[in-house]
């Protein structure tokens, strides 16, 4: 029965995954969906449509909303078979990673029907409005205000570190709906259409030179009261659930399939004697890193298996976020050390591979800040897992 399913998945992928979609992803051809999406490679559009028709962009979501309706075991089979032939991800989506699971848990039927199919098909691109200039690690002190006037909420304030807000169609937002209530009690979770003049997104340039984040300004922006998820002033619980999904996603950030492994990169740069890296002290540190990396991957595998047998993720996601991002920073420090002078070039000389590594090194420093800093994760583990006062 299980083998039959695997066979049918293999056959379907063989028949439907276009040839160029079985090559390593290049950044310009990534598909994030939404109204601004362009398809420089037309096969990525075909691939998205075919996968979306199957519901396999969100394989475990219910069929009634356009998902694949697969069991976790079946979804894993699809993932494994895709990996075997090197399929690209048809759609990279915060809607799938973050918003969808929350809508499935907290949304009403109308909201699920309105939004989930469009997420699955990549028609609407979502961004996340959490942090504010004055509310970073202390997220619950957020001040962006939403007041109910008639049938609409009117929103004023600003969000920061909003990934790709300038290319997104809608934003899911934490807003303050009751300023008189306690910090965490007056917050609501709502969805806002960004296609209105009262919402503006401005990119922020990072040390890596890229601008993946924006600041978003709301000036009397409007959203219908039906776009409130869960109950009024009940947003904090949803926010925490969503952060768990986000942390788990960020923790896997070190696993880029198409990237050169550190040991191979170091061999290229430093050279070997008798099959061993000539710099023995550096080799020892690379081995230590790779061991921690493998240990971490095994832990993700164990946790995934345990969650499937009913174990709740909860604070475990903080551990993954902490460990994965600190590990990723360590990797890029070692990459830079392997590259030596080659890693110091910004532009105008050398290899693109090295320049990308340099940019990734800079970018990696943000991993342990975004989605809750490492220090916040340590606080969560200490209090919620270890029960320290």
């Amino acid at each position, binding site marked *: 029965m299980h083998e039959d399913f695997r066979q049918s998945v293999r056959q379907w992928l063989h028949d439907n995954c276009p040839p160029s979609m079985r090559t390593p992803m290049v950044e310009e051809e990534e598909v994030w969906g939404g109204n601004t999406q362009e398809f420089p490679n037309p096969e990525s559009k075909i691939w998205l449509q075919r996968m979306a028709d199957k519901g396999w962009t969100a394989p475990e979501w219910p069929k009634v909303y356009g998902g694949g309706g697969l069991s976790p075991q079946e979804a894993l089979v699809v993932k494994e078979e895709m990996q075997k032939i090197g399929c690209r991800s048809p759609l990279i989506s915060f809607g799938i990673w973050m918003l969808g699971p929350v809508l499935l848990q907290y949304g009403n039927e109308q909201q699920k029907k309105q939004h989930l199919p469009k997420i699955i098909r990549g028609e609407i691109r979502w961004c996340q409005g959490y942090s504010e200039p004055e509310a970073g690690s202390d997220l619950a002190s957020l001040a962006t205000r939403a007041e109910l006037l008639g049938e609409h909420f009117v929103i004023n304030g600003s969000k920061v570190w909003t990934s790709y807000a300038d290319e997104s169609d809608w934003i899911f937002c934490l807003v303050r709906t009751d300023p008189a209530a306690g910090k965490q009690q007056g917050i609501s979770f709502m969805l806002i259409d960004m296609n209105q003049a009262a919402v503006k997104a401005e990119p922020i340039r990072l040390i890596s030179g890229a601008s993946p984040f924006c600041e978003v300004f709301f000036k009397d922006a409007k959203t219908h009261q039906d776009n409130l998820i869960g109950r009024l002033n009940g947003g904090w619980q949803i926010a925490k659930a969503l952060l768990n999904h986000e942390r788990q996603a960020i923790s896997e950030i070190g696993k880029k399939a198409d990237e050169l492994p550190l040991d191979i990169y170091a061999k290229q740069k430093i050279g070997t004697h008798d099959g061993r890296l000539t710099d023995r002290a550096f080799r*020892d540190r690379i081995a230590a890193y790779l061991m921690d990396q493998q240990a971490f991957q095994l832990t993700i595998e*164990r946790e995934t298996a345990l969650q499937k047998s009913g174990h709740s993720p909860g604070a475990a996601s903080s551990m993954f976020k902490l460990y994965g991002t600190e590990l990723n920073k360590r990797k890029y420090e070692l990459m830079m050390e392997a590259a030596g002078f080659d890693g110091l070039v910004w532009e105008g000389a050398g290899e693109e591979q090295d320049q990308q590594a340099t940019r990734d090194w800079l970018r990696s420093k943000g991993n342990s800040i975004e989605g809750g800093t490492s220090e916040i994760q340590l606080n969560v583990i200490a209090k919620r897992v270890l029960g320290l006062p």
Partner: protein
Amino acid sequence: MMNWDMTDEEKLLKVSADNFFREKLPLNHLRRLRDSQDQVGFARDTWQEMAALGWTGILIREEFGGMDFGFRGLGLIMAAAGPHLSSTPLLSTVACASFLIQNVGNKTQKDSLLPLVASGESIICVAHDEGRQHGDHSIELSARSLASGFLLNGRKTMVLDAGLADHILVLARSHAESLELHGLSWFLVPKDTPGIQWEQFRLVDGRPATHIVFKNVELKASALLGTLGEAGSSYEEMRNAASVSLAAEMLGSATAAFEMTLAYLKERKQFGVAIGSFQALQHRMAWMYSELEVARSVVQRALVAMDEKSADATILASLAKGKLSDLFPHVAAEAIQLHGGIGMTDEHNIGFFLKRSRIHAELFGNASFHRDRYARALGF
């Protein structure tokens, strides 16, 4: 996909192992052992009780009187011994000797020895190390071929569990010109063979250990275990077996030291509050918790790789022993620091964890050794 959950059988084994070590070999047993200058290091009747539970034969196939529960089973027992720093010949006799004899022994050796190990009657110590550290370069004890058998000359260091052993498993260089893992052979030497001298001493944690000198020790041809000159690969396999078993025990010990410390942080008050409320201490504990969780996955996976005789068993065994050889000493040292002054007193048990951590970190290869072995296995 590996099964990360315990089977019902494994759950039962874990419960009975946890109870056994808590009742029969608690930490105070190690303290008494030290204080009484015990020369043996464990009690024969406790070993017989473990045999009655099937643990001495846990790796041994049923045809030789064993339980054939594999490394997953042995790992559960070692992990249960860890929190109490219980001292038994599980590592030498079960993880090393029974594993090796079953893998490379001839029919006579397996038929005669394995049932005795399983029944608890035979205890076998392993004499492999010679230098200041576990490694491949230093093995020099020579085995010269005679018409009637072999002649051993040389010295072995840091042999555990020799006290009640009836046999010594000796790793010797049978091909004089060879290097490292080439030209090595195994010999099963009856303890009372003439020419063997024992140099007993006490380890930092109070357990006895022995250096063994072999001076013109004559062996019959039948003492050879496995193929002459080909012990290198079986030594590597035994090193994997010992590494994963030790790693399981070290994880159990490290987890216990962590939990003792966690309890202390909740109870000890300074400045009018529990010291566990201080963020500087909380973060150290949260990091240790994360490292222990990661180590747990590694140990579980490595034990399964041994049972599956998987191609990456060496990588996973070195991953497990390498991680734990760093982590256990780290957790033990942090435990002392977080206990403060009381942690430095002999009266408090936490100090035993630090001492044990150093010993187990060095046995069968320390962290550097296993990082090197891991890197070699990955080809860099």
